[in-house]
């Protein structure tokens, strides 16, 4: 993850945030390992919804998964989606108007215009943060965070997060935010236990 611009400056989120904590990878390793959890504080707090905490350089191979990103009410839902490199995202359109999905970041792609209830998919080969835009509705904004491993989580509206199923070991915990940044931290995970790590985001 270190090579991609995780601190790219993206636009101010105009869409409401679907406040969910996603823990991709938990299905793979939830039965074993420990949990990394904590809290992120942001100044200004209004950018907190666009934050992902992730672990760098976790050894292993990780099966590709499929996730979905919906367009509903002219918003990308969820606002931030986490997948693993090699994974596929099904872009849905549950609006009654046509939408387009494209990203100017990293691999760059344009899925064209798709009608209501149409689904188009894209498989992410390279890790990084992909801004999701709709050329028909320039105010729409979403993010797909493509991790090198599944150990990443979107923070909740209160700033808390949890990454379960992490193999025991010492890792570098990092944070991505659309506008803000914070220094990486070391975290040691013990089997069956929870390791705490927190971040304070600033300009």
């Amino acid at each position: 993850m270190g090579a991609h611009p995780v601190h790219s400056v993206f636009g101010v989120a105009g869409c409401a945030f679907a406040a969910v904590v996603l823990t991709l990878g938990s299905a793979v390793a939830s039965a074993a390992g420990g949990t990394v959890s904590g809290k992120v504080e942001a100044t200004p707090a209004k950018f907190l919804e666009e934050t992902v905490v992730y672990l760098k350089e976790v050894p292993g191979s990780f099966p590709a998964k499929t996730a979905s990103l919906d367009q509903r009410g002219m918003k990308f839902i969820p606002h931030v989606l986490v997948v693993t490199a090699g994974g596929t995202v099904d872009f849905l359109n549950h609006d009654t108007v046509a939408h387009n999905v494209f990203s100017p970041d990293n691999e760059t792609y344009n899925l064209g215009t798709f009608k209501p209830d149409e689904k188009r998919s894209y498989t992410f080969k390279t890790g990084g943060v992909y801004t999701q835009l709709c050329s028909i509705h320039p105010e729409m904004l979403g993010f797909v965070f493509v991790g090198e491993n599944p150990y990443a989580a979107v923070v909740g509206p209160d700033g808390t997060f949890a990454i379960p199923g992490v193999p025991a070991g010492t890792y570098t915990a990092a944070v991505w935010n659309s506008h803000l940044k914070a220094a990486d931290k070391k975290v040691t995970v013990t089997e069956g236990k929870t390791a705490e790590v927190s971040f304070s985001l600033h300009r």
Partner: protein
Amino acid sequence: MEADRKRSLRRWTVRGSVLGIFTLLLLTARAALGVPAFARKYGTSCLTCHTVYPKLNLFGEAFRRNGYRFPGVDSDFVKQAVVPLGQDAYKKEFPHAVWPGTLPGDVPIALGFNGQAVFHPEARAGGAAADNGARVNLNDLIGEAHVWAGGSFDDQITFFGELTFADGGTEIEHVGVHFNDLVGEPHVLNLAVGKIVPTVSTFGPHSSYLVDQATPPLSVTALYGATSDSWNVADAYDGLEVNGTIDGRLDYAVGGNAGANVEVRSPADFYAHLGYKLGGVRLDGEKGSTVPDPKKPWAEKALTLHAFYYRSGSRFSAADGAVLEDTATTFGGGLRAQWNSWELDSGAYQERHDNALAGGGRVSALAQYDELSYVIYPWLVPAVRVEYVRLSPAGGPAVTDLRGFAGVAALVRPNIKLWLVAQVERATGAPPGGWGPASGLAAPTTATSSVGPEVEAITLGLAFAF
């Protein structure tokens, strides 16, 4: 020759009565208030930027100087809903996409009203005479209404404007688009375009607790009856201005505008300003620059020196149909000395006109002002102020007008203001149009007689904005 002079004086006298009305309008005008549109945008109090509005505190001055933006990244502080007209990521698509911007989620408009009750303790004074001998004038208790628009198109481009509604009609007081941070470090180079108030001081044009304009306007061609649409250093004109703050200590402005011309002509007005602040918080409010006592956001120990040059070319039609052209060359300067809650603002400028008389002829003018204020409480500020004007027309007698103001400005609420001000005046002679266009009320009967000192008015003012 003498007969011509008398005819000219009679003509001036007739114009003087018209200009007398203009005088009252000037005196009753307190156009500047706070701007709740900004308060709504940032979800913050008027007191973030003002002491007793429109007087700006140190943060408010930095906000104004920065093109109506907070230090740092302006949008970080915006609490009002914003409609994105394209997300920031669209910048990567340019020129294949429109450069993104934002729209305020709510209409960025604010309203305000102001006026005053005027008492004339001396029935024979010029102030009472201007009110037809009335001792009490309530006719302007609500004398003006204002509509302000203020906000941003993105983190660099902002807008600010004001419409004023009064008995005399509706006027665009000023309106401009501000393109900020064009090159280099933040605040080093900005461009303002529109009908903007020329920057002739390091501080805002309404830096007074007692009068509307800190730099007293001196409409010399109006004073001598040449035109009612007279240029002066304090008015807003259509044009553009490059300005900025360097290293938080030095501020500058260079601008050009159309000036006050009855007829269209090529823009010929040019001005430049330079200021430097010693001590205290930075002029741009950046880098964590804070006041010594956060409970007193107006207080510091600092000295600021500033100077300006202004060249204006006016073209106007005289009463006899002849077209006159007047060039005014003005040099001025001032200082603000601050010692905790004490503040002294002083300044003066010398203005030389080559054709300001109704029949043509040179006039040299001097305007000087001093205002001392002390913030007792955040809501209560007494102040005293002196303004002095001297006019020296070619071939005519020099005349002077000395005005003293003493009073107090108070906040009932952060957006409701009262002020009580007494004005004393002494005039030695008067220009043919009276002292009105110079904001004076004293009315010597001839160009060589004198009146005063006399108490012209005691004013109880009310202003509120929302």
